[in-house]
Each structure stands twice: as structure tokens, then as C-alpha cells.
């Protein structure tokens, strides 16, 4: 399987400070770092969520994320960027996803982080399954609003 150093799919948690420090390492030309952290909510569609399980498609997920990352570099001239997505079982308040981007000026970094998250939502092969407090399970449905969020970036 191809290894992409700026894409990490992992079961373990991540530390924002450590990851951003690595992102900035060796770059003296960075003037802006923007990061987004996605976390597990305890309520979805009006129901309490006890466990959130993330499944992915090994190989395709990394490739899809790298494609999104490179497009962000191309459009906003980033100096560096990183995507971490956790898989497996997670619980309310856990961190799920981290997108961090660095550029010379803030505007590009803000746009690029937003773009990467919107595209990740609709293009990277991950699937969420929720377990409710009564132990019943259900797959999370894709949202129309996520597709609309992606479309705003059409050139």
C-alpha cells in the first residue's frame, strides 16, 4: 500500500499541539496555521449516542484524502498540511478528525481547511455507525447539507 506521510488513519487519539508543531517544523515562511478538530457528539438526529464506530476502506481512503490535500495545496498555495482521521470505536467528546494547514497568509489557510473538511465529508470512504444507549445500532445516513457544502467550492 502506498504511504502518504501527511495522511494518517489511526485508531489512537491525537494531540493537536504535537501535530501542529510537526507541521510547522522546518518552515520559516509560515504566517498562518489553521486547524479543525471534529469531535463525537452525544446526540444525533435527536437520539443519545453511546458509541460511534468508524469504518473505512484501507487504501482508497488514504488515496482519496491525499487527492483532496493536494488539491487544497494547488488552490491555496499551502506550505504544509496534515489530515488525521481516526477509525474504530469512539465515545462522546472523543476527537475524530484533524485537518491542519499552514500558509504564508491567513486567508488561504482558512479557506483550505474549510475546503478539505467539506471534501473529506463527501469524498473519503468512511462510514459511521452509532450505538444507542439501549444497544441498538444504526448506520448514519449521508446528509444533503454535506453535498451542498462541497458544491460551494466548485470552480
Amino acid at each position: 500500500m502506498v504511504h502518504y506521510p501527511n495522511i494518517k488513519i489511526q485508531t489512537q487519539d491525537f494531540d493537536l499541539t504535537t501535530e501542529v508543531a510537526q507541521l510547522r517544523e522546518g518552515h520559516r515562511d509560515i504566517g498562518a496555521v489553521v486547524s479543525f478538530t471534529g469531535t463525537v457528539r452525544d446526540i444525533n438526529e435527536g437520539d443519545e449516542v453511546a458509541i460511534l464506530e468508524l469504518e473505512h476502506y484501507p487504501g482508497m481512503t488514504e488515496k482519496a484524502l491525499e487527492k483532496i490535500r493536494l488539491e487544497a495545496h494547488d488552490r491555496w498555495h499551502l506550505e504544509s498540511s496534515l489530515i488525521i482521521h481516526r477509525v474504530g470505536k469512539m465515545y462522546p467528546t472523543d476527537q475524530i478528525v484533524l485537518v491542519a494547514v499552514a500558509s504564508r497568509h491567513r486567508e488561504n489557510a482558512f479557506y483550505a481547511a474549510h475546503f478539505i473538511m467539506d471534501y473529506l465529508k463527501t469524498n473519503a470512504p468512511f462510514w459511521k455507525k452509532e450505538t444507542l444507549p439501549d444497544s441498538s445500532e444504526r448506520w448514519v445516513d449521508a446528509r444533503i447539507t454535506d453535498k451542498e457544502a462541497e458544491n460551494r467550492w466548485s470552480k
Partner: protein
Amino acid sequence: MMVDILYFASFREVLGRANEQLPAQFSTVGALISELAQRGENWKMALLDNQNLQIAVNHDVADRNTEIKPGDEVAFFPPVTGG
């Protein structure tokens, strides 16, 4: 020669398997789907009649017209919900 077929998330559960190998005798994804749909109502509903079906061939987004070659990896799955 064979093709590898993968099923993810709700598809894996509904179809009762995560993967299988079939002889590489299908010219396109559409031809493969027509064959699989004959296995029963679950298969027909998940693959043939499903307007939201997502397809990948060799880790790239594909559609029913995508050609299949021996050794290819074809994946079927529902719309993605990561992030």
C-alpha cells in the same frame, strides 16, 4: 484470472460478506452488477436498484460504465459519512 469484490458498511451486513473473488468475465461494472443482482432481492436492492450506490475500481471512484480487467479490485458501498 479473478476480480476482487469488496463490500463496505451496511452493504457488508445486508449482503452477508466483506469480500469475494469472481472469475474476470465481466466487461464493465454494470455487467458485474447484473450478475450479482440475480442472487436475490437483497442484492438487487443494494446494487441494481440503488440510486445512491457508490462504486470504486482500484481505489478510484467509478460508475456502471467503468471497465473491469482481470486482477481489478471493485468495491461497492453506500454514500460516505466520515468527518
